């Protein structure tokens, strides 16, 4: 690794425009196909189900969706990349594939270290208090107990769940959806990640929290990481990301500076 860094600085020293660029995520012609259950739609009798078990075929109400069709891009260290596109364009799917949670059917995704996916649906234990969830979440991210003890108070402060009384000691099922999402973001953001994948998390929470979380995302990037942000709120993409990738129906439409891509995207969305 060290010699690679040396080699690239040597080469870029003469190229004044380019900085030392170290790729953290390399997506190489990735195709992702997944199966969705359409609910009960015929062929659901026990006999039919048994026959499928024996013959090892899939249920007829399971349909294959080709969600990502040959996407390629490279993300570098220190970048914040927005992923935009209309609903069902494959943004969240590709994020989950980068996190290693979905397999690619063709092509490959290479990553530096272990990317962490931060989604609003990341459920913690609802019967436990916020404090215990913080400890559990930090341990699940691989932190040492000493480090968790040091960070726990800061995480709760950052999430702001204690702004209206002592909520940290109440079970998470008593939280509003915004509070729960804020706590989850705070836990995930407490650790330095090589690659952090955020799925719409910044859209939740009030204005004050949004500001804090944007600041936190900037800090994470400075800590030599790459941040991906999937969002329907173009404003939060514009505020946090300088590069944006536009996906449409699983195909990469555009990849470039945020302003240009968003301009094109808005023109496309308005013309529909």
């Amino acid at each position: 690794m060290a010699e690679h860094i040396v080699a690239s600085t040597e080469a870029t020293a003469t190229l004044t425009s380019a900085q030392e660029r170290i790729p953290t995520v390399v997506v190489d012609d990735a195709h992702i196909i997944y199966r969705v259950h359409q609910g009960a739609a015929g062929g659901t009798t026990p006999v039919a189900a048994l026959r499928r078990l024996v013959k090892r075929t899939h249920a007829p109400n399971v349909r294959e969706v080709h969600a990502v069709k040959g996407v390629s891009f490279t993300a570098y260290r220190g970048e914040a990349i927005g992923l935009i596109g209309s609903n069902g364009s494959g943004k969240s799917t590709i994020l989950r594939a980068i996190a290693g949670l979905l397999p690619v059917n063709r092509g490959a995704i290479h990553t530096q270290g272990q990317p962490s996916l931060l989604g609003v649906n990341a459920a913690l234990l609802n019967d436990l208090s916020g404090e215990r969830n913080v400890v559990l979440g930090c341990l699940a991210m691989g932190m040492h107990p000493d480090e968790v003890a040091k960070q726990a108070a800061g995480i709760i402060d950052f999430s702001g769940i204690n702004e209206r009384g002592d909520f940290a000691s109440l079970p998470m099922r008593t939280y509003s959806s915004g509070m729960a999402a804020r706590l989850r973001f705070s836990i995930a953001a407490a650790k330095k990640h090589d690659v952090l994948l955020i799925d719409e998390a910044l859209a939740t929470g009030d204005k004050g929290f949004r500001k804090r979380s944007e600041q936190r995302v900037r800090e994470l990037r400075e800590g030599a990481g790459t941040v991906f942000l999937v969002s329907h709120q173009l404003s939060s993409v514009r505020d946090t990301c300088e590069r944006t990738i536009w996906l449409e129906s699983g195909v990469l439409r555009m990849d470039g500076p945020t302003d240009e891509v968003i301009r094109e995207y808005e023109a496309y969305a308005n013309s529909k």
Partner: protein
Amino acid sequence: MATTALVDPDTGLTQAQLAARHGLRVAGERPSLAEYSRRLWAYRHFIAAYANAKLVASYSNAKLGQLWQVLTPLTNAAVYYLIFGVVLAQNSIPNFIAYLTTGLFIFNFTQSAVLAGTQSISSNLGLIRALHFPRASLPLSTTMTQFQQLLASMVVLIGIVLVTGEPITLKWLLLVPALLLQAVFNAGVVLLVARLGAKSTDLKQVMPFIMRTWMYGSGVLYSVSLFERLPGWATTLVQYNPLLVYIELARYALLEQAPLLNESLTQLWLVAAGWALVAGIGGFIYFWRGEQEYGRG
């Protein structure tokens, strides 16, 4: 380097070459068995904290709270004693109530671990899809939760054994290695059913019946001497039934006159250790081989 000094060294490379050049790894790749064990060890604090959290959470809605840890095994023992001790009046066994509760609590350790383990992947999909950690942490913490439950029921058991007039002897110490061996065996079986249960959710419906059949084959509710009336091969089969072996070890440790199916104590210990080893290692390898599949689809 001199010839390429003016060019970015990464230009002209394909995506795969670029990734290889900077030492990037394929996303979601399965680590080697040694590496996986090492990572799992690094997650031991998480496993313990999660097991504890589950235990607390499971009673958080009940008014009596943690008291149920003791009340559940007591009620269980009372119900079975009513049927098998009073209604069916099995008086042939000395100190039947202690005989029954020993079998019941030891069996219940495996039963509840296996039932919870079947769902240990499918009921934690949110956690699995959000965070990356060795998935074996989940079935292992399930086993640990049940082990903590077992310790509570052991307090109840020792109370029952003392009240029914069994003397305290040095043999009681044998309970510790017996329970530890059973815990290893359980961890292995839980890892096995966790992977099976992650793939096919139907297993959850079938598991209670499998466990009940297993219970009748483990001599929990009646005297093990009944098994001697079976044909020879069936008796041998029952003798090697891991749960019967663990129950017999506990009965041997705590009770003075309990009837045992296995005559030789050495054989009992060897079979107990053998099962723990086979299930523990086999279950771990089987679970590891499916590591990339959990939480997908």
